[in-house]
């Protein structure tokens, strides 16, 4: 998140009283917010009354530019579907894109740990180059620091990007009004769960890939097709969809109601979340974004007409309406969602993300459910397939939702619950 020039006067009253920095201050939830608004904003920036956004939009002698920066600390460096290099480019390009700007140039800072194999570094630089080409952005400079072995975790990358405004889009949370619809670009939680599993700490495996990609082409396509109906955008990275919507709710002054059954979540992600006691709404994404569009524009018909645009883009194939703003303004509440069978409102829990996980079921239970273990390969997989036969078109259910703009997913059949206990 970029906080330059966006310090709301009302927020400046927050004081940061925590005696020391803890992991939660970097997790994107309430504690991060407190750190930024209680310490960085009052000391570094004068308040301009604007809410915090993904990028700062500046007016430099009449030229409008957007600027943002992001650092990337990921373990492992490579994971299914991507690596830190691609992430570093996509993350910054996406932050600019959802603020309504097209990334033009990036600079990158590398913090390297002595002992890092050159091969690893070369791979990541190549990954950055490839991602930059795809996003149509130049990497024009950088800086490198090397720290002693043991003083960093192999490599950290920080990228700063500047961009120019995409014509036809104005991202402004204060323009959000009751009745507006929230759209999500695709299934959520893929990245966070992929990373979690790639660390090999959980003895779980799933056929999952990170969703890291640039969302810029998609944002540009919407801008062309329906720019004027867009009120707000955000890429739900750290802290997930719930945290982004909490910020929206706070910035626009309205509550947000989600229809849980309309939120697209892959079965693998759901399965992992069920086992680990996590909520997909709090899991990080790297290639999805949320949009609030005006109520009228979100009718199923109008979006179905526009789907032609997206289908031609390689990105954002599944775009779903997941909720709507409630009818009346209310204070104090952030985010709520609706359970399919009991209207159920949830106070969000950013702290949960900071709570390290403990498997919900012990191994004894696992054995009770799945008698065979993975170690004896192929066979258990087959028995799992039989045991967990599940509907392939789990997304189709949303088509019957009233007033939801449902853009049907491509016909790639969902794999079964490909979650194995190793």
């Amino acid at each position, binding site marked *: 998140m970029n906080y330059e020039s966006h310090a709301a006067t009302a927020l400046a009253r927050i004081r940061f009283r925590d005696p020391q920095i803890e992991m939660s201050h970097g997790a994107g939830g309430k504690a991060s917010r407190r750190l930024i608004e209680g310490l960085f904003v009052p000391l570094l920036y004068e308040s301009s009354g604007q809410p915090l956004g993904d990028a700062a939009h500046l007016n430099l002698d009449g030229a409008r530019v957007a600027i943002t920066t992001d650092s990337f600390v990921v373990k492992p460096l490579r994971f299914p579907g991507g690596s830190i290099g691609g992430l570093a480019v996509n993350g910054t390009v996406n932050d600019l894109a959802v603020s309504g700007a097209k990334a033009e140039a990036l600079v990158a800072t590398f913090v390297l740990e002595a002992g890092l194999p050159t091969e690893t570094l070369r791979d990541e630089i190549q990954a950055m180059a490839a991602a930059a080409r795809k996003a149509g952005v130049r990497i024009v400079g950088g800086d490198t620091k090397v720290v002693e072995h043991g003083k960093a975790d192999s490599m950290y990358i920080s990228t700063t990007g500047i961009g120019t405004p995409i014509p036809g889009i104005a991202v402004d949370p204060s323009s959000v009004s009751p009745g507006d619809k929230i759209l999500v670009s695709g299934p959520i939680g893929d990245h966070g769960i992929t990373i979690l599993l790639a660390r090999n700490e959980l003895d779980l495996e799933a056929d999952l890939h990170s969703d890291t990609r640039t969302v810029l082409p998609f944002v540009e396509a919407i801008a062309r097709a329906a720019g004027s109906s867009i009120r707000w955008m955000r890429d739900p990275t750290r802290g997930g969809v719930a945290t982004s919507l909490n910020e929206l709710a706070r910035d626009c002054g309205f*509550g947000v*109601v989600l229809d849980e059954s309309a939120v697209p979540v892959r079965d693998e992600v759901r399965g992992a979340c069920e086992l680990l006691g996590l909520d997909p709404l709090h899991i990080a994404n790297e290639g999805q974004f949320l949009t609030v569009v005006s109520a009228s524009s979100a009718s199923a018909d109008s979006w179905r007409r526009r789907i032609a645009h997206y289908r031609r883009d390689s990105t954002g194939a599944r775009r779903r309406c997941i909720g709507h703003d409630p009818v009346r303004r209310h204070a104090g509440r952030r985010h709520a969602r609706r359970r399919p069978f009991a209207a159920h409102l949830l106070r969000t829990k950013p702290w*949960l993300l900071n709570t*390290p996980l*403990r498997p919900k079921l012990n191994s*004894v239970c696992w054995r*009770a*459910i799945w008698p065979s273990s993975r170690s004896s390969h192929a066979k258990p997989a087959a028995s799992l397939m039989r045991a967990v036969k599940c509907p392939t078109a789990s997304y189709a259910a949303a088509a019957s939702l009233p007033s939801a703009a449902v853009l049907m997913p491509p016909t790639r059949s969902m794999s079964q*619950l490909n979650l194995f206990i190793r």
Partner: protein
Amino acid sequence: MKYVDEFRNPQLIAKSVDEICQLADPQRHYRLMEVCGGHTHAIYRFGLKDLLPSNIELIHGPGCPVCVLPMGRIDDGLTIAAQPGVVFAAFGDVMRVPGTQGSPLERKARGMDIRIIYSPSDAIKLAKLNPDKHVMFFAIGFETTAPSTALTLLRARAEGLRNFSVFCNHVTIIPAIRAILDSPDMRIDGFIGPGHVSTVIGCRPYEWVAANEGKPIVVSGFEPLDLLQSIVMLLRQLRAGESKVENQYKRVVPWEGNRAALSAIAEVFELRPYFEWRGLGFISQSALRLREEYAQWDAERRFDVPGIRVTDPKAAQCGEVLKGVLKPAQCKLFGRECTPENPVGALMVSSEGSCAAYYNYEHRKSALVTSIGIPT
């Protein structure tokens, strides 16, 4: 998703709720205790409380290992961890539990070597990777997790691992249920029995509750339909004036329990003469410790443990909430000084703690419902 979606089927849930409404005598007030913290969490998460008639009151029981652990034990564990060369390994839900000098996570931020593990066997891996350090596993949990600690100790013994020990806080559920039944301020009509614990101990150990105390008990699963079905089964028994043990969670819980797991527990652990529980005080024979043969891996024997009793912060009413005497929101600190972000008491920390469940799913819900007009 198989095994999940079926148990969250809205039509079936509506049907069970109808049945509950028919079975419940409107003249009568039912107090049912769900012993397990996992049930408490599910009840709030799925909004089951809103579906039940108002004369069915669900009382949250003591089945949350983190919540019942007195603060002194955390302090003891951290005192050992403060010694040079000691690595403190524990499950994630212990990490944020407040000790007098801060939670393990806060101590970690100040440089103490504290690791989060997902299974006790990870502690063995850790010990092998760090032969120059001593890895102490802070074991916690009911009979659910005791077998995996036992198996880990069996392995440590078989491999002759020297730089590994267990600080054992395993507790047993039956004495806790007995303590609740003995408590004069608790008037419970029936129990929703713990599902995970019963996968290990089976249903037989509960028979005395039904036979001697005349209270029905239904061992239940953790999905909404499981819980509602268990309530139906309890109400049927209450209506017929019966009291027996029933197993709703048959797909996971064998009546006799898991023999292999039980024998591993018996091999490694013995009962402590007494153990302190938050809220319930000292309960005799309610916790496990390592047998003499495993003294070498027993952190309490290997290290000097201060063993000082630490009382909870005065204003916090964790004990009363844990016993079910108070509802979470009735505690003076709830939602003000004590929040999941800055927990004062353990019940606000654990995902199984009733305060955390209540705070996340229930707190200020009624205000929201009125302000945005969502029907319940």
